[in-house]
């Protein structure tokens, strides 16, 4: 479980983006974070991933305070897929997936190659293993980026707008796909896409102007804001 307590965050230019945030992300399969543009969703993700340092408040992951965690432990525990994905353009998809586990976890290349190929198989894009990011479609790149993050087998994975490159139909398929992907990983997905949220998540929350407007069962939360 990821727990956020009385979190306040302001950017260096003085913009306060988060006000006294208190919330819990249970270790269940998919949790949806919704909200208007500029409401602070990405900021919250970046605080959890420790790319931003909140001015006050505490974040714990499975009862460990993130501010005291070693970098490597944090990264092994929490994966991030950015809105703009940031696949490495000089590496093909397979190499993108294998880079971190080779360097960070020192796992044998052979084993990784097998694992990555299997993962691509399940994603339905085995033919893209040797393709470069500039050669694949937006939806394929999105899957590849998630696959890359999953190679480290994190307990939690933060997804920023994972369906932004998908149309409505594929985003529901994507929700089903995500559900089956890895049972041991909990996804926290920031999204505008209510269809996707309903299809994928059981619980969720809705943010407004840096505060949490409502949280709970996904149907209630989405109903309150449509």
């Amino acid at each position, binding site marked *: 479980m990821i727990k956020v307590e009385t979190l306040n965050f302001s950017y260096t230019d003085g913009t306060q983006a988060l006000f006294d945030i208190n919330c819990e992300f249970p270790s269940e399969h998919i949790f949806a974070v919704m909200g208007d543009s500029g409401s602070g969703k990405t900021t919250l993700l970046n605080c959890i991933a420790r*790319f931003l340092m909140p001015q006050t408040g505490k974040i714990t992951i499975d009862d460990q305070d993130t501010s005291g965690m070693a970098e490597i432990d944090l990264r*092994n525990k929490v994966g991030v897929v950015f809105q*703009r*994905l940031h696949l490495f353009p000089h590496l093909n998809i397979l190499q993108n997936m294998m*880079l971190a586990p080779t*360097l*960070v976890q020192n796992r044998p290349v052979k084993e990784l190659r097998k694992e990555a190929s299997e993962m691509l198989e399940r994603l339905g894009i085995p033919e893209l293993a040797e393709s470069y990011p500039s050669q694949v479609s937006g939806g394929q790149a999105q899957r590849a980026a998630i696959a890359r993050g999953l190679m480290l087998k994190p307990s939690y994975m933060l997804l920023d707008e994972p369906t932004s490159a998908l149309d409505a139909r594929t985003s529901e398929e994507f929700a089903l796909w995500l559900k089956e992907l890895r049972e041991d990983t909990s996804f926290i997905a920031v999204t505008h896409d209510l269809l996707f949220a309903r299809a994928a998540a059981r619980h969720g929350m809705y943010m407004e102007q840096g505060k949490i407007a409502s949280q709970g069962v996904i149907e209630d939360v989405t109903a309150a804001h449509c």
Partner: protein
Amino acid sequence: MKPENYVIRLCLLLMFLFMASVSPSGAGENAENGKPLKTALTGKFPPFSFYDNKGELAGFDVDMSREIAKRIGRKSEIIATEWDGILAGLLAGKYDAIVGSMAITPERQQQVNFTAPYYYSGAQLFVHRDNPKRLYSIDDCAKARIAVVLGETYQHFLETNYPEVEVVTLKSGAEIFEMLSQKRIDGFVTDKLVGSWQIQKAGRDFVAVGDLLYKESIAIPVRKDNPELLEAINDALAGIESDGTLKKIHDKYFSLSSGRKTGNSGELSNSIIAEKLLAGFGITLIIAVASIALGFILSIPCGVILTYPKAMASLPYMVVRTIVDFLRGTPVLIQLLFVWMGMGLTPFKAAILTLGINSMAYMSEVIRAGLMSVDPGQALAAQALGLTKLQRFRHVIWPQAFRIAIPPLMNSVVALIKDTALVAVISIPEVIREAQSIISITFEPGKYYMVVAVMFFVVTFPLMKMAGLLEKRIKQKGFAHD
């Protein structure tokens, strides 16, 4: 393996070789007597100094140098260097004396001590046989364009005594001959002996007109802190003259019997010319490759430091920025002379160090730009995947930055290869210097400068083409954000 690995390894190897060559060499140079007597001359002043048809130094001054060394009881080592910096080289201790037909002047006497003269000559005006301006002595030369070799005493003499003469300073006798043949100048002033000899040899229609402008005493300069050597050379000179050796050497090069074809200063065969030019170009390329390797390796950390944000607060940034700006804002020639004479390095090391550091300055900017054009999200994504700072740089940022930087790096490489032309000035026997010495014998500047230009082009053209192609490919692959 990725291409940049090869490049880095190759560079490291070259660095090592360079370091190895820089480290101080051999012992056994302690005793003054064991040391060779190092004397300088230009090698471009026939018949006093030139390269013979075997490509070796010969001439009146060369024989004199050897004879003097022999009589002093030391081995002779002759260093061919540019006239421009020959005195400075003596003062910097690059050699012990100049046996290079240097005239005694009050200015020079302030800097060095001269031995007794070993021959006398004088300044003579030469004009084209057609003589369209009807110049019969220097007094007729008001407004006429009269050439001298840059740095020779005639320049100063004309400027002070005949201010109405328009003095044209050129780099070499060969250049003067070309200019006068094309009548782009009206005449030239040079040493009477040398001038007559050169005109005859080159078969030009030039004639001496008027009296000697002045008489010159040619002697050997020695550093002022070295009176023992001055005395020793004076003793040697006295002996050389009194036992007839001086006359023998003189006759060898000037007497009528030493005809044109005997080959003392003879024509160079084509195969020797080709050999000299290729050997020279080999040295040019060695210097270029070593400098590029040095510059590239240094430019990586410098390029990284130049990307530091909050520039003003960071000391490393300030230091690197200042060095880079200074190197880019000052002439390479000055840097070269500084490293050579100011820091006292051998010409070869000075050339590699100067050109290497200089290309470091330019390459650092290229690498900085390459690093800056990598999307910052790349580093963030790599961090999110748990890569350490070094791993992020090594595996994610650098490979992208390097690919972006390759085309402009190629341009730096081309620029550096061309810059090696400068090192001729500090008497490295690279291709341009070889060409000059060939031209001083063959008097065919047009031909040999063109040959040298083509040699450079053969190397630079593929590099330029490659840069263009790579640039296109990199754009297609979608590296770099906008």
